[in-house]
């Protein structure tokens, strides 16, 4: 009992630290210039910060993936995940070969669906691994990859939160059909389509926007810095990310219901438990299932 509680606490402490470090890494352009200015240290090493962010995010991704793989991975999950990642990576391959409008990308649709049906751990792996596999096959491995993996992992990991919201809506409207579910997930997809771009832009914002005194001034509040970033985002990336957001809505609206049905059916089939019958001889040597 004591060991179980300690295990649970240590697991969640690690998840919290990794998520916190990820947020800190992405958010550092908002407070770094302020800290340096207030302490009289104004030399910004422009080229260095994106590398620190990359290292921090790589550590977070590896630690979370390691933690998940030691808890939740068995042969069925490995095989299922391999196949789903292969399907999603082939969609990314299509996206590179035939680019859609703006930041349109078909990969988030399946990450959201899988995260919603199979849970947050599975969703995180789905998001992170889709990005790494598709980068390997399209030659897109680079310092931006850990950030992409981490953010796509967040997309999958946060999807189960929608269950609470959807259950509430179904109770309010007294309906349990899939329409509410699909509409809610489409809105969720639209949100992540934009938010994914806003997060990924943070990696390069201080790098592209010039020295810190050009995107930050002494005395401005965090809200003002955020407003400056919002202006930068609206001008440079909003239209691009809108393509991704609309793509998610279209894909989830059209493919959502049948894909959810299929994934649920296979979830039931994959979650069987092998029960060993009492036999007159020792069965341990035949118990090959994990």
């Amino acid at each position, binding site marked *: 009992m004591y060991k179980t509680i300690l295990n649970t606490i240590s697991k969640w402490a690690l998840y919290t630290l990794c998520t916190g470090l990820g947020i800190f890494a992405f958010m550092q352009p908002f407070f770094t210039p302020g800290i340096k200015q207030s302490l009289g240290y104004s030399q910004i090493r422009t080229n260095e910060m994106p*590398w620190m962010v990359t290292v921090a995010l790589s550590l977070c991704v*590896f630690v979370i993936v390691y933690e998940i793989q030691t808890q939740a991975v068995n*042969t069925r999950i490995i095989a299922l995940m391999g196949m789903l990642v292969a399907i999603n990576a082939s969609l990314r391959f299509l996206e590179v070969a035939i680019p859609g409008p703006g930041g349109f990308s078909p990969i988030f649709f399946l990450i959201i669906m899988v995260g919603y049906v199979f849970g947050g751990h599975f969703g995180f792996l789905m998001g992170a691994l889709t990005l790494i596999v598709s980068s390997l096959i399209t030659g897109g491995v680079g310092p931006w990859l850990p950030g992409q993996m981490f953010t796509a992992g967040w997309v999958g990991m946060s999807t189960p939160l929608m269950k609470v919201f959807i259950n509430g809506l179904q109770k309010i409207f007294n309906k349990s059909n899939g329409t509410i579910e699909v509409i809610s997930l489409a809105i969720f997809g639209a949100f992540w389509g934009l938010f994914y771009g806003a997060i990924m832009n943070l990696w390069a914002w201080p790098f592209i926007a010039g020295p810190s005194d050009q995107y930050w001034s002494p005395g401005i509040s965090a809200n003002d810095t955020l407003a400056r970033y919002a202006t930068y985002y609206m001008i440079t990336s909003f239209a691009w990310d809108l393509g991704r957001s609309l793509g998610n809505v279209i894909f989830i609206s059209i493919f959502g219901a049948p894909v959810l049905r299929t994934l649920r059916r296979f979830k039931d089939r994959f979650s069987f438990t092998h029960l060993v019958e009492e036999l007159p001889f020792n069965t341990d040597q035949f118990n090959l299932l994990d």
Partner: protein
Amino acid sequence: MNSFTWIIWLITILAALSATRNPLHILIILLTLGVMSRLAKKDQKDTLVPFSIFPFFLILVFTASAFNALTSHFGSTIFFTIPGEIPLISGSVTLEAVIYGATNGFVLSGIFFSFTIFNQSLSVKTIIRMIPKAFYPLALIISIAINFLPAIKRRLEEIRQAQAIRGHQLHHIKDYISLFMPLLIDSLERSMLLAEAMTARGFIPHSQQQSSLKSRLIIFSGLLVFVSGWLIQLINGNNYALGISLAGVAIIIFWFWWISKNIPQSVYKREEWHVQDWVVSGIVLSALCLYFVPLPFTNLEILSYDPYPTALLPDFDAIIGCASFCFLAPAFYQKRTSR
């Protein structure tokens, strides 16, 4: 050449690019990358290179210069002024902003190209093999995904033909449901068979590496040390704090290496480390030292060029400039082995 030599080469290039903002020195590194990319072996079966290097370089530099010129209105050499109150855009367009943007474009191009050469030079299988043993379920998932990709493409084509025979036409996005759903169901059925085959062959994924409390504590400590170093660096700006961050990274890497030691792995053909790998690693690391170690015959200050407030011609250090050509070392080695 050994894949770890390629990693050393990649790290040295990235470190050199992050150490300088001098456009002349960055251009020399880009020149070496251009030559390297010409000579890098392309494995077209495994890797899709999504862009040609030179046009991409021009587009990136132009975009970065234009973007910085339109959004950053600092500098004393004014070309013209954009009137009105358009947020971020209105204001003076200066030469300094163009130079700063172009330098950003050079550095970004360098990062893109070095990774492109790395991707071209190593096969996907070699990269997967480099995943630490502690992450073998992850490596297995990636391996399954990459190996099943061609099968999925073939299956998609079969489904498309079968639906076409039935008179199905693809006009709207809704019509693709009849392609996507059979593909998804078929792939999930295959994964069921694959899982059974793996189990039947005795594959046991995680019984040997349960995440223990000790493991979590060590990883947690490593992350805390890393964050502490980063915070100290942000607050004081001291370089020793970078050492603390690196110590945090080292703790985590060491722990994963330690876990990996207890995981058995069959290696059918081990990659050899040749004398040439020592030579190439030694040459590129020596060249990198000139970017960081202050020596009596080099001037490191010229590496931190800043065009603001008034653009001046950047200085040039001939010794560091010549040393940058040492990053071509893998190209000479590859050329020799291909002969």
